[in-house]
């Protein structure tokens, strides 16, 4: 029997050494700091954008920002209305989504419900490869290949236009949407499909009335992701849609998006801290808020339509 005063030699031998405890703790702290750095990044983004925007709004009233119909910060008589940039962003994004959402969804349904496993094995990596092509190359396609083709159909089309940028952007987003939607549909349990088939439904009916609704939250997530990609896409629109802010809803016109404006300003040499310098941060903040709103809508849509099985 060991006395109470003398330390227990057995537990002593098995209890970890102090150095080991310290090392383990230090490693845990370092790993935590690394993980926390991503939160710090988010705060840094918000801090920088808000700080520069506050400086901007001290000079430019909010009313002008939201109602003025011209965005000409680099002119001698600057006007600061965000509407032209917003209209450019919306038109190009809508064109892209009109292409990407229906095509991407049909492709996803086909891949998940109809395609043979072998075909899927070929197509899936191809989709990943297409998603990896740098956007500057898509911009090149839009300006130098797609626009000339469109000009043959519609001769009045200017060299820079939102239509061609939007179409190519849709082609770029389609693999993203179909890939994520397919993942969502594939994770729907097989019993649901079997049950539907047992009641006499064809594959298409099963796909549209059973699998698609069951996977809707994942599918919505892919749409939202595609939308934020379209809204935040920069190089395609900067190359093919032009850099001229233009308040128009006509897709055959040239118009700058929020992102294209940031590129245009960055290409020049602006003095640090000037009002023009601050405008790109305001544009960036608008962009972040836009994607944030989209994500929140998507989150609630996904929740609202989620089918629990």
């Amino acid at each position, binding site marked *: 029997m060991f006395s109470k005063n003398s330390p227990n030699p057995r537990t002593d031998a098995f209890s*970890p050494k102090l150095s*080991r405890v310290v090392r*383990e703790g230090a490693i*845990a702290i*370092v*790993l*935590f700091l*690394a*993980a926390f*750095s*991503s*939160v710090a990044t*988010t705060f840094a*983004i918000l801090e*920088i*954008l808000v700080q520069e925007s506050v400086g901007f709004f001290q000079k430019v009233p909010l009313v002008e920002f939201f109602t003025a119909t011209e965005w000409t910060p680099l002119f001698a008589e600057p006007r600061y209305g965000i509407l032209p940039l917003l209209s450019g962003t919306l038109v190009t994004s809508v064109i892209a989504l009109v292409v990407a959402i229906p*095509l991407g969804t*049909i*492709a996803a349904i*086909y*891949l998940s419900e109809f395609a043979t496993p072998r075909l899927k094995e070929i197509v899936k990596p*191809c989709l*990943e*490869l*297409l998603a*990896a*092509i*740098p*956007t*500057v*190359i898509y911009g*090149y396609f839009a*300006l*130098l*290949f797609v626009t000339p083709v469109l000009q043959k159909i519609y001769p009045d089309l200017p060299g820079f236009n939102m239509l061609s940028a939007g179409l190519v952007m849709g*082609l770029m987003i389609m693999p993203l949407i179909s890939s994520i939607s397919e993942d969502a549909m594939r994770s729907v349990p097989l019993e649901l499909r079997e049950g539907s088939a047992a009641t*006499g439904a*064809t594959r*298409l*009916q099963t796909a549209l009335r059973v699998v698609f609704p069951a996977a809707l939250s994942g599918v919505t997530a892919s749409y939202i992701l595609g939308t*934020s990609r379209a*809204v*935040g896409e*920069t*190089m395609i629109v*900067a*190359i093919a849609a032009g850099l001229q802010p233009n308040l128009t809803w006509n897709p055959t016109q040239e118009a700058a998006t929020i*992102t294209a404006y*940031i590129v245009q300003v*960055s*290409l020049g*040499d602006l003095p*640090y801290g000037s009002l023009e310098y601050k405008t*790109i*941060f305001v544009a*960036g903040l608008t*962009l*972040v808020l836009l*994607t944030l709103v989209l*994500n929140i809508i998507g989150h609630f849509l996904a929740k609202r339509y989620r089918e629990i099985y």
Partner: protein
Amino acid sequence: MSQAQNRQALTDFNLKELRTNIERRQLISGAFAILGLIIILVATFILLGLIFQMMTQGIPRLTPQFFLSFPSRNPEEAGILSAWVGSALVMLVTAIAAIPLGVASGIYLEEYARKGWLADLIEINVTNLAGVPSIVYGLLALGLFVGKLNLGQSVLSAGLTLALLILPVVIVTTREALRAIPNILREAAYALGASKWQMISDHILPYSVGSILTGIIIGLSRAIGETAPVITIGALTFIAFLPDSPFKGDFPFISFEWLKAPFTVMPIQMFNWVSRPEPEFEINAAAAGTVLIFMTLSMNAIAIYLRYYFRKGIKW
């Protein structure tokens, strides 16, 4: 309803109508399948056609001289030397910054984090960061690295920016890789007296290194093609000199001057040539695009191959 009545009702029902109904529905279903296949094929072929067209324009321009010349006003003399050297250096900084940070974050979230608001906060945050438009990272870098930290419009700023940009990719793939390792391995390591870190570094990481590598390569391939954030930092489009060599003849043999050098990268060089009005530069743009697409696609192909290879190799 009695059985007799039931049978009567069935015969009354027009069997022919039922059959045509089924046939029609099967036809629609089959037509849809064909439509799906056509959409996939057409979209793929349009893209492949565009890539092919670019390559046929660009490949004749891919002479050794093109790789060894600086950009120039004269399209025939212009080359991508400063661009690919810049891309390589920026990628080096990005990899050095993003790999340890991303893998460490992934390990923390998967192996250390306890369920709670802090883990949730980090997790939601990583998801959100993945959705932030890339140009916003450029604004962050402009305000923080260039403006506040005074790192200048340099290789270092660009590398760090792209590291932040691909961090979510690295974190998410690290987590997925770790999650795929069965728990029995962890329990076995603990049973032999390993500490948590010994368990992770000696057992879990070696098994997941293949999948983690895949994620890192995909992240880097994304970084190499990113244009917008690098433009925002203020990368120049016309650079006719190379950054300082990292190797020196005299002590201490390496130098870090190149980190502070102004630079350009491949996608910016291509963007610059695309936006020139002279059509001669289009050929240069096509050539640069061919090189760029070759870089990203080969990186991705390696990643896809690695993933299949490691998936096949490991059987639990």
